[in-house]
Every structure is written in C-alpha cells, then in structure tokens.
C-alpha cells in the first residue's frame, strides 16, 4: 500500500449555515447524492480500497451506510470526533495519526473533481515531495452566479500562489484574506528566495482543491506540533517557508544514535522540523551521484539542495470545484448535472416517466411525481417530491420529500427536505425550510421555521 486516503468530513459548513443546521456539510445533497459520495467515488476510481473518514460521532451511522446505499466497494474506516467539538484539519489528522502508516492523501469532503489523481501522485513520487497540493484554474463563471438567500457581499477566497516556472515548486502561498486582514498592501518576498527561484509565476486565480498528498514524516511532524490546527491555513504555508532552511545535519547526527529513545523520553514539542526527515542522507547521496537536475541556470544541485519540498500540481483542464460556500454549492449542482455522463459514465440516472416539460440539465429523483403541466429547467429535484400543476421551476435545488402545489414559480431557490410550498407562490433566490403559505412573494430571503431561527 503506497498511499492511504483521509477524508476530512467534519466540516460544519460555516459559510452556508442556512443549509447545515440539521446535518453536516458532507451529507448535503449534490445532484441527489450526499456530498461525501463524490469524494468516495473519486477515491474508488483512483484505486483506493479503503479510506479513513473523519466525522462527528452523531453522523457515524449515516455515513457508514453510504457505500452500500450507492453501490460503492470502498471500505470506510470511520474516525469520530466528539459531538459539538470543532476540529481543524490538522487536528483531525493528529486524531488518526496511529492509523497512518504511509504517505497520505488528504481531501476535503466538499470536493468534486474529475482531475485524474494519478497525475498528482506521479508528481509527488517523482520529486519525493513533502507536500503536493492540487490547484485548478478555476472557471470564471462561478463568480457571477446569483446566490439564494439574503444578499451578502460575496467574496471568493483567493490565494496568491507563487510557483516556480521551471519546476512545479511552490515558492510561496499567501491567502489574500490574511494579507488584507493585516492591512498590508504589499507582498514581500526575500531576495534570497528569488535567487533560488528567479522566475516565479504568481497566480491569483487558482482554486485550491484542498487535496494534499503528504509524506509520512510530515504527518508525524503535524502530530507532534500541537500548535497546528489547519492544514491549509497553517501547515502548508509553514512548510512552504521551511523549504528554504538549511538542514542542520550535525545536530541530526548527534540525535540519531538514540533517536528511538529520544522520541519517547524527550519533550518532543520543540523538535526541529529537520529531525523528522527520514532517509535524508541516502537521498542526498543519490542526488549527488545523479546527473539529473530539476532546474537550470545555476550550479546548485537538484531541488536547490532543499530537503523539504512543496510542489503544486496545477490542473489546466478538468472540472474541480469545492462546495465551500453557498454559491459554489449551487454552481456545483448545476455543473455536475451537465457533466454527469462524462464524469460518472457508470452511474446511470433514469429519469421518471412523466409528461411534464423537463428541460435539459435537469435531474429528477425516481420516486418523485411531476404533474403534466409543470415546467422544469436547470434544476435538481430529489426523491419523493410532489410537484403540482403549472409549476415553473428554474435553477432550483429541491431536496427530498418536497411538496409544491400548483401555479407556483420558483427561481434560483433551494428547497430543503420536507418543505411545502402552497398555491401560487413566487419565490426568487430564496432558501426554504418549512411551509410557505399561498400567494407568498419573496426575493432573497431565508424562509425557515421560527423555532430554528431562535436556535441560531
């Protein structure tokens, strides 16, 4: 087993609270499948036979049932977090450290992507990378879609990613939010870094897929260093910065003879990052005997003699999007329907027989019933829904067991499980979680139960 996989599914969906108050983000439906199904499917396609899933304990049963429900062969090894406790991604990795035996692929449950993973693994293998991250050149159309619910100032989270032009090395990684929160107007780079990497391509429009291939020793390092809570926000920038340090070998040699003892006995929180590196000497020897070099232009050895190396795989094509915000969630639903046949050729969807006008790019649950005179465009409709006459649905996400009575117009809205829309409503860009009475007209509103509102 060369790689293990971990799915981080304990995210609460803090950027889409209207949808996630009664279920975890990983179980929100995208095209009538729970979000986590897409990650599991991707891993299964990539050849993984089992996967570690980190999740809050109250959802254990629900998640455990997913593979059998949707016919996946992958085995789940579920690691539970205590209820109502927030764990960062690095914390979660620390939780499962004993189960990690090899290099590990960490993904987030909200990723939907059809980029072949073997490319990322190849890059990781070729360069003996410490961390390899997947980036995608995000599609610009995502930015422009209307978002249901109250109008908020929508800000796409962006990172400035500095890549070496010759090698796919990650030279720096800063999130724009960090820079603006610190009121910095400038990005500063050390000249010594530019000496090592004289051609840096700074890309501001890349989407970080939150898919990382991490070396075993880095996992150990994260496990030891309790100050890390997040992979993306803390660990990755830290490692990217540590690339440029010189390995202090002498120190290493001193520690080596009783390394086994020291790990147990010493207070290891302050161990130097370099002491976690394994097989450095062997690797350095191989490098020095080889004529191969990853860059040209100076007389430095391959990888500038850096022992810690972070690489980025930038996917030029292929679909990749994370459901980490409301707008991305809606967009994902629309995009996935369009691409369903190419992305999942083995998962056929049979539309229910009905005389309703169903446009292209629609997905309707098999057990739903549509009246003859309704029209549905660009929408997803879940299982067990009942849609009345003369209902017009455009650009909507309708979850399971929703009832829509007659002569209603719905546009750009999300209807959660079990909601009911009575006659002649007109809803635009709304999020509905309960019963909406007749003749209601709303735009950009969240219509959920009053007691739920109180809870929040």
């Amino acid at each position, binding site marked *: 087993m060369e790689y293990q996989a971990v799915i981080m599914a304990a995210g609460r969906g803090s950027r889409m609270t209207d949808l996630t108050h009664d279920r975890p983000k990983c179980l929100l439906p995208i095209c009538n499948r729970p979000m986590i199904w897409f990650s599991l499917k991707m891993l299964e396609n990539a050849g993984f036979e089992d996967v570690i899933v980190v999740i809050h304990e109250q959802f254990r049963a629900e998640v455990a049932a997913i593979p059998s429900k949707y016919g996946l062969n992958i085995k789940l090894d579920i690691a539970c977090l205590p209820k109502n406790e927030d764990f960062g991604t690095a914390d979660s990795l620390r939780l499962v450290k004993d189960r990690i035996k090899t290099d590990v692929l960490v993904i987030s449950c909200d990723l939907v992507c059809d980029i072949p993973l073997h490319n990322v693994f190849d890059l990781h293998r070729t360069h003996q990378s410490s961390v390899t991250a997947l980036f995608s050149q995000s599609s610009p159309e995502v930015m422009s879609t209307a978002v249901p619910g109250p109008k908020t100032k929508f800000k796409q989270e962006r990172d400035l990613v500095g890549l070496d032009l010759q090698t796919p090395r990650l030279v720096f990684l800063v999130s724009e939010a960090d820079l603006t929160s610190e009121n910095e107007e400038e*990005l500063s780079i050390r000249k010594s870094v530019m000496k090592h990497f*004289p051609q840096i391509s700074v890309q501001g429009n890349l989407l970080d897929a939150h898919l990382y291939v991490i070396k075993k020793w880095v996992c150990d390092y994260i496990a030891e260093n309790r100050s890390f809570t997040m992979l993306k926000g803390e660990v990755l920038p830290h490692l990217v910065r540590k690339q440029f340090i010189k390995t202090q070998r002498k120190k290493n040699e001193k520690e080596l003879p009783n390394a086994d003892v020291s790990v147990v006995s010493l207070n290891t929180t302050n161990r130097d990052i370099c002491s976690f590196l394994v097989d450095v000497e062997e690797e350095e020897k191989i490098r020095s005997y080889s004529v191969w070099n990853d860059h040209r232009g100076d007389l430095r050895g391959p990888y500038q003699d850096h022992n810690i190396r972070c690489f980025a795989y930038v996917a030029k094509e292929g679909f990749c999007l994370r459901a980490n915000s409301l707008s991305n969630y809606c967009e994902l639903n629309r995009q996935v329907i369009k691409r369903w046949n190419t992305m999942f050729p083995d998962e056929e969807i049979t539309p229910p027989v009905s005389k309703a006008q169903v446009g292209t790019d629609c997905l309707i649950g098999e057990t739903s019933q549509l009246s003859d005179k309704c029209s549905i465009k660009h929408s997803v409709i879940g299982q067990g829904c009942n849609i009345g006459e003369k209902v017009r649905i455009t650009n909507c996400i309708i979850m399971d067991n929703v009832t829509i009575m007659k002569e209603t117009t719905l546009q750009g809205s999300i209807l959660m499980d079990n909601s009911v829309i009575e006659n002649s409503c007109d809803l635009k860009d709304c999020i509905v979680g309960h019963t909406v009475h007749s003749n209601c007209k709303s735009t950009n509103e969240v219509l959920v139960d009053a007691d739920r509102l109180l809870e929040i």
Partner: protein
Amino acid sequence: MSSNKTSKSMSKSGSEVLKQEDVVLAVLIADSFSIRFAPVTDSKPKALLPLVNRPMIDYALESLLLSGVQKTFVYCVAHADQIRQYLKESKWMRSVSPMSIEVISQSPDDCRSLGDSLRDIDGKSLIRGDFILMSADVISNVQLIPILEEHREKRKTDKGIVMTHIFKKSFPGHRSRSAEEELVLAINPTNGRILNYQQTTNLKKLSFPLEMFKEHGLVDLRYDLVDTHISICSPVVLPLFSDNFDYQTWGDFVRGILINEEILNNTIYYHQLEGSYAAHVSNVPMYDAVSKDVIQRWAFPLVPDLNRSETTPRHTLSRHNVYKQPGVTLAKESVLERDVAVGENSKIGERTFVTQSVIGSRCTIGNDVYINNAYIWDDVNIKNNCHIEVALIADGVVLNEGVKIGRGCVIGPGVVLAAGTKIPDNTRLMAHPPKCDNDFETSDEEDDKVAKPFSADSVAYVYQRPVEEDSDAESLIDELWGLDIDEDSESEEDEDEDEADNDEDEEHEEEVDVGDLPEDMNARSFYNEVLESLQRGYEEKIKGDNLVLEINSSKYAYNVTMKEVNMLVIKAMLSLPSVMTKKAATGTNEDWVALRPILQHFLPVMRNYLKNNQSMLDSLEALEEFGVHNSHFVKSICKVLHFLYGEDVLSEDAILEWYTNPPNDPSALKTIRKTVEPFITWLEEAEEESSEESD
C-alpha cells in the same frame, strides 16, 4: 555639417527619398553619465575605450547596422569632440556607408543624464517616428527590426504603448549580470506588459503591491533578467521626458510611467531575447565579462576575427580562442594559453605566460611576465618579471621590472611604476595628481601622503572616487572585481536562510530602540530617512535650512502628520549619538558630551519645527517617550531641557504645561518626571522672580 554630408550621401547612393516615418531610426547615447571607469575616462570618452582592441562605439554601430537601422543619431556629451573626430575618420561617415550617422553634441554642463539628453533631442525635434534607443556601450547581435515590428503590432491593440524594452535572460550568478544593475520585473505573461520594476541591488526583501496581483490574475516575477539598455521607443517618449524633469534615468522613466499608468494610460512592454546576445558594459567587472563573451564568440558576428573595421586589422584565430593581429612577435617559450587577443606589432618576451587576457597594439612585454585575466591597452610597456592578475591597464602605461599588480586594479593612462612596486588589490591609479577643485574635503597634507604612494620614481597617484550619495554600495560592488565573490554571496544567503528559519517576528531587531516607533510603515520609513538625513547633515555640516527642506520632502513622500514629524525629528536627534558610535548610551556624563554638539548643530532645524506651543508639547512628549525606552538617557534629560530652554527652542509655558499634564506612560512618572523636578522648580521660581521684578 555632418548632416549635410549625410543627406548628400543619401541622394548620391540613389536611394529613393523616404519619409522619416519609414526610415529605421536609432539614437545612440554615447555617454553613460557615470564614473565607473574613472580615471580612465578622464581623458577619453567611454565610447572610445577599446574592447578586445576595438572601440566600444564600433560594436554598437555595427550591431545597429547589422540589424538594418538606416539612420543613427549619435548623441555625445563628455569628450564629444573626440567622438566626432573618431567617427569622421571612420568608415561610418563615408558616403558608401549604408547607415547614415549624425553626431549631436552637447556640453557636459547642460546634459548630466539620459533624461537631459532625451529632452535635448526632443527640443531639437529630430524624431517623429518610432526609434531605437541604445547606449553606445552596448554590445549586441540582436536583430532589432522584428522587435520594432512587434512594437508596432502591439500598438494596434494598445494605443498607450510607449516603449518595448529588451531584456536578456541570465540567471543569478552568471557573469553577465551586473551586480549594480540587478532588477526584478513583474510582468503580465500573456501580453508582456511590465507591471512593476525594481532595482534590487541593496534590497534584502522585495515588495510588490497587492493591487497588481488582484488586477492581473497572473503575474510573473522575474529576477533572471538583465537590462540590455536597448529599447524601442514610441515618439511620445521624448515629450514624456520633456514634461517630467525629474526623469533622469531609464528607471525613473519606467517608475513614472507605471505610477501614472491610470492617468495617462501609457504602457511599457518587455521583450526577452531568445538566442541572441546583448550586454551593457556598465562597469569594470562587466567590461571583463563582455570582453570574455566577445573572445569566446557569444556575440557572433561581433568577434575579433570578423572585424569589419578598417583602422584595425583583423585578428587571426587559432585554437583555444587565441587571436592575433599581424605583426605579433612571440619570443621562445612564451605561452598564450587560452582566450587571449593580442594587438598588432606587440612583442611578448621569453617564458611569458598569458591567459584569458587582451593585449593591445604596439605593446612590449618582457620576459617571465605572468598575465592572467588582464586587459592591457595600446602602447603599454611591461618589463621583465611583472605579475598581473585581474587588472585593467590603460594606454601608455610603463611597468618596470618586477612590478606586481594586485587584483582588481585599474591603472590609468600614462602611469609609470618603478621597479619592484607592489600595488595592493583594488587600487586605481592615474598619471596626474587629483584635481582638488571640487574635492573640498581633501586637505593638502593628505594629498602629500597619497600622491606618490609607492616610490619616488613612479608617476602614479591614487585615484579617489568622489563621494556620491549612494556610494558605499556601489564602490563596494566595483571593488568586487576579481575577488572570489561566490563565498560571500553564499554566506549571505545562509544568513538569509537562517533568518527565514526564525519566524518572522524577529525582523525588526536591527533597529535602534527609540521608543515606540509607529506601527505604520510610512512613519517608520520616514523616521529612518530623517535619521539618515540628520546623520549626514551632522557629519557634513549641512546647513539647517537644507536639512529642513530634506525633512519636509520626506514628510510629503511618506505622508506623515506634522505631529509625527515633530516627534520623530526629536527622537532621531536624540538617538543620533548612539547610532553614530554604534554604542548604547552609557548613562554617564559622556552622553551629554556627545549629544550637545549635535543639538547645537540642529538648533535651526528645531527652531523651524518647534514654532508654537503644540509643536513644543509634541517634542516634549517625544523626549519623554525616548527617555522611557532608553533608561540611560534619563540622566541627561534635565540637561537637554535646560539647553533647549536656554536656546529658546522650548518656551517656559510649554515645559510647564507638559509637566502638569500626566504622562502617557505611567512608568515615566517615577523616572523622568522625578529627574526633571528640580529643573521645573527652578523654572517656576525663576518665573515668579521675573514676574515679581516686572511688578
């Protein structure tokens, strides 16, 4: 007169009359406006210095000709008559020359920079179309017409294009990178627009505006480019220079264009050379690098054996890149190892070893001489047993027996060194005593000391570079010629890396603690600038008015408030003694001894800023803050107050008001307020007395 000639030659050659727009025009600036080559350039213009036995301007003209330029304006400033004379006698001015040349000369007093010369050209309204701007010390084999076409093509999509500047890729550490012209460009890789330009020689950290990354999703940061000093200019470049008198160099121009981009919509593009050669001889180390490139044939067809000049005969090439002009005499057992060029009628003595060097015409080199990495110009006489390594030896120098020249030396024309002289590394010698007219600081005794440093028989004076504003960095770089600088840079890197290792919080530790320096970067840099101005002002005894001007301009540059100015100026003055001596205050009387002359000198500055009550209060606040952070200073605070009061800088009212207000930092109560208590009581008493008296 020359223009008459050229116009005649145009009509004579039978070519059809062309509109100026169709003629490919070039402007060759035959002056570098620098003193990198002094003292050699004291008597000879840089453009005529020989590079592998051929004047540099020949290479520049040759490359323009090879790329199809039809008319060139040669703009001369220093020693313009010599350049005019040279060109007049050369093949360039003949009627058969396919490229017509017009010489424009200007006196050095009216033209001190590239900006001045372009303003002058604009004033003469000679140019109406796109033109190629190049420096006469550029060696290149670039085909410029395709780049010119590219420039015109870009104008179809971007009306605001003013310039396409040509860069060559050259990785850090390569010899063709000039240490003093290091730069970082931010470019848009999709269209080649330059978004940001920085000179990085003295920087450790590079900063780029975030705006730029937001605006352009994709930005390439390039540290691997070298400025070739060749650009394709739209005609609008000239009026842009005329409109902005502060544009002196190309760098000023680029920065100005980028800053005003939104208003004027002007853009600059970059062109990266692929496979062709271009280099700018900016200083002596670059002269060394470019000479080697020419000898090693990187600049083909600009190589010594394809020399098209008529005045100097061609070299013949033998293996290991050894070039010889006709009439070279090699005595027995002499060795020309590799990468050597020897000029005509030169004689090389027995057992003499020459490698990686250039020897000019009519030189006589004795027996058992060792020459490595040296550039020896014409008519040089080197006697037996001399040792020369990494040096530039100008015309007519005589080295008597056993002279040893250290690494990185530049020996000016006409110098005669007595037998057995040893010249230390990095010395620059000239044949006449330095002129003292503008060197106000060199006193006579000093002159006597250094005038004839080696022996009475030598004709050699040490050349001292006049102090420039930013001289320390530049001279340092010049001195690096011939030294093994790799280790230095390597160790510097280690430091950097170690620094990177430490987490970033510790970055500010270098600064002297002067109290809570404002968080805001502007004020911080303002403070540093003020500190620098004051230090220089004190050391060079600059008048108060000028310092005030300087501080005010920094104030506007960093946009700080008046209160900050008052406080920071005072803090800077107080920290000056420790900054200058690099010692912290001792807490003894010596502090005051060191501080007093400084305050005395800056009285006019203080009087300028501390005019009203509020400003005085600001300064007192600063005084107090400084005291809180430098506990040793507390001892002197009374004396400072008394002194400033005595000099009428601080008024009695202000001091008393300050004393009655509670301090910002409670810890000040115990220390500072207590120490000044006697002074305050004295003040109060004095006031009472005086009021009584007036009653």
